[in-house]
């Protein structure tokens, strides 16, 4: 396998024997803490028990009925702070027997079961009685897919409007392929498509009042899950700088026809990534894998304050990324024809606590310096497009243009308009978007009864 094939394929999951061995370690807890820890109510204790008692189809059914993206979640959930966090198998007693002091690998088992369902062509859902109600879903990311699936399972007529050429949202145009590959995505989408959902791609719902208009165009309810696809930047007028990318551009290029070109941009170059979250981790690790000469991570606070998951940070360090901590980017240095040459930085020190409860970085006067770099990727946050509130002018939004929706129902300030996923929560998780879709679907059914 060439290194590029390795880039495009994710590592193998458990096989049947390994999954059963892992399920064998499970204590089959009463009122299981793992199930309580799953944001989408995927019921891990139930599907592990089913696997343990050789009810494999039943285990798959539990996952798919509760989480239509059970495969993606199994792969992508930061399980160590969700289901696995409180797993009793971690033996929090002083006399833990050796070998039993780690949680059950719930995400791995979940992934296995879903992959196994594809191998065995297990079909979980019957074709439902068609119903007359029509629902529009805006966005085909995890939130949109989950809501659409939940409704389609019961025969509602669902149309997903997707602005991009292909469905999947971040799962397709964000996450790097060695963590979640196209083959896996296509399989999981098959399960969703089999429910009879209409996908309308290349169909952005944008422009004045576009979302609210769907209600007048024959849809009985609308679920908004467009995610966050604008990139924050330290230099709003930097669009013409050659070698400067947003994480959104960079990562989506790695997932479509622009891959080769992007690989050329990175290979053998000095690459700096600005940010400290999970997206920044995807950017640095992929740059290493694409053969960058040096990869720098620029972060204005210190290591322990980075929002990225601990294992992601360690992996990046291991991969050879240079962590440049306590440095605030100021500006870019360019050569002729706007070719990027370097990144102007100033050193910081940590001061008093800020609103997020972390110590605020303060610039150290006179400590400016320049890091030579051929490429800079800004991974400092995805946000809602500035103009997005115009698509749904009557819907209440907050200062960051995130939609205000009731967490229990996904209801917005406009009757019939529901919302969920990142556009409501800000940058969040796949499993949370799945849950928002489920919650909204339930509320939509209630709403349509009235």
């Amino acid at each position, binding site marked *: 396998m060439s290194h590029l094939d390795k880039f495009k394929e994710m590592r193998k999951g458990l096989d049947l024997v390994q999954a059963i061995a892992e399920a064998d370690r499970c204590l089959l807890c009463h*009122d299981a803490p793992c199930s309580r820890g799953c944001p989408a109510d995927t019921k891990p204790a139930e599907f592990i028990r089913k696997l343990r008692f050789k009810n494999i189809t039943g285990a798959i059914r539990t996952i798919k009925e509760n989480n239509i993206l059970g495969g993606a979640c199994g792969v992508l959930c930061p399980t160590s702070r969700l289901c696995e966090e409180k797993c009793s198998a971690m033996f929090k007693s002083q006399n833990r027997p050796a070998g039993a002091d780690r949680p059950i690998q719930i995400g791995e088992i979940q992934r296995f079961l879903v992959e196994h369902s594809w191998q065995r062509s297990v079909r979980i859902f019957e074709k439902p009685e068609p119903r007359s109600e029509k629902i529009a879903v805006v966005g085909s990311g995890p939130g949109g897919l989950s809501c659409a699936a939940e409704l389609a399972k019961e025969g509602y007529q669902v149309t997903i409007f997707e602005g991009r050429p292909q469905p999947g949202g971040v799962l397709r145009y964000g996450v790097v392929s060695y963590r979640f590959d196209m083959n896996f995505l296509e399989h999981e989408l098959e399960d969703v498509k089999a429910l009879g959902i209409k996908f309308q791609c290349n169909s952005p719902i944008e422009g004045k009042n576009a979302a609210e208009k769907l209600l007048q165009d024959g849809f009985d309810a609308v679920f908004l899950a467009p995610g966050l696809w604008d990139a924050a930047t330290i230099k709003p007028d930097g669009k013409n700088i050659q070698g400067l990318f947003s994480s959104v551009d960079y990562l989506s290029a790695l997932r479509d026809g622009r891959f080769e070109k992007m690989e050329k941009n990175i290979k053998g170059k000095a690459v700096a990534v600005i940010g400290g979250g999970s997206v920044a981790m995807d950017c640095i690790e992929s740059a290493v894998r694409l053969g960058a000469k040096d990869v720098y991570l620029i972060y204005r606070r210190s290591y322990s304050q980075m929002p990225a998951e601990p294992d992601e940070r360690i992996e990046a360090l291991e991969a050879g990324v240079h962590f440049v901590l306590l440095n605030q980017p100021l500006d870019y240095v360019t050569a002729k024809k706007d070719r990027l040459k370097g990144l102007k930085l100033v050193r910081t020190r940590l001061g008093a606590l800020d609103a997020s409860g972390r110590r605020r970085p303060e610039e150290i006067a006179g400590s400016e310096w320049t890091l030579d770099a051929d490429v800079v990727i800004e991974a400092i946050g995805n946000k809602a497009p500035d103009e997005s509130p115009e698509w749904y002018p009557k819907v209440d939004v907050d200062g960051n243009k995130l939609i205000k929706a009731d967490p229990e129902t996904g209801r917005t300030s406009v009757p019939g308009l529901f919302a969920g996923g990142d556009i409501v929560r800000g940058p969040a998780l796949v499993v949370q978007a799945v849950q928002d879709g489920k919650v909204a679907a339930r509320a939509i059914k209630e709403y349509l009864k009235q």
Partner: protein
Amino acid sequence: MVNNVDLSIDFCGVQFKNPFLLSSSPVSNSAEMVARSFDAGWSGVVFKTLNSDRLPIVHPSPRMHCIDYGSKKEMAVQNVEMISDRSLKHNLTEFLYLKKNYPDHPIIASIMGFFTDEWVYLAKAAEDNGADMLELNFSCPHMCIEGAGHKVGQAFQLLEGFTAAVKEVVSIPVIAKMTPNITDMNEPAMYAKKGGADAISAINTVRGISSVGLDDFVPTPNVFGKGAISGTSGPAVRPIGLNFIASMAQNDQLNLPLSGIGGIETWIDALEYMLLGASTIQVTSGIMHYGYRIVDDMIEGLSDYMIERGVGQISDLVGKALPNLHETEAFDLERQGIAQYDMDKCIGCGQCYIVCQDAAGQAIEWDAESRRPNLIEDKCLSCMLCKFVCPVPDLISHKEMPKEWKRQETAVMDSSLEKDIKYEPFTKEGPNECVI
């Protein structure tokens, strides 16, 4: 240190340097294999059952199936293997090789015939070619030939007759190997003794079915579309083996040396057989699973146990547990106890609560907030199911309660229905034993 204890044991006048023997099976099929087992530490061998070449022996294919428990492999093995498919000439030549190269390792020749002359012929052939003892195989549950194996073990006159015939022609000691596929082994064992047997070995495989194919409905091993009831061995049959050894060891009339077989893998398994009366033990499935090397741990483990307890001779341990083995009627039912929890160790899995609810006394309350069980002592049945499921060792133990303590009776669901029951108390007197 390990050398300070003596593992050697006398069995029917034959000296073994430790009590660990290969039992008659694939693990003792050839001299090349047996030689390696001796090098590994096994003291002797019951060679794979000889046949007289009168009938062709062909093993079915496949000849075994395995029973797993969860991800634990080979909890038991199912086999339809026949006695040795090698010619008698080859097998006897193997004896000569082993006697020549391993003179200190006794060879026990296992034999099986159909009629007296055949038994006698095999017995003599074995003795003449160096066998130190014989083991009469009255116990294979699945020979493809009608009349052989355990059918003899179940027809006690035949068993006695064949034993007597063999005893008449050989001077080496004779062991009778018993089938567990009966109710009380003392009966056939007594017949073997009457026939002159010098020792009893038990058990051979237990008649069983390992599994059934869900697609083809063929029981396993699936021999080209056909299954059969056949022999189960391995850890799952150990309680059955221990039962038969102990009950024969307790039989004063029998009073023969015993060789324990069935599910032995560790020194503890072996020692338990010995504490219940076996003076040697034999192994097949443990070797089929892990190889000859397990004897290393049997020798070392048993030696260390003896050193720790100051036991010099392994023979001192034979039958040590028998004085404590009673009929259940001997129990002192006045003394009662309950489960006792060391809550500092609890990890909050709640399995104790589940089994106590659904299979015991509903004696546990579950605190969902703290995820901890709370035992209502007066309801505890002392069944100890909670201890069995608890993943933390020594968290739950049994403790005796004071004499005046009384267990709560199981509550009646709706005692208002009592007035409607159709019933009269039983008042007749009768004997406390079963009579028609």
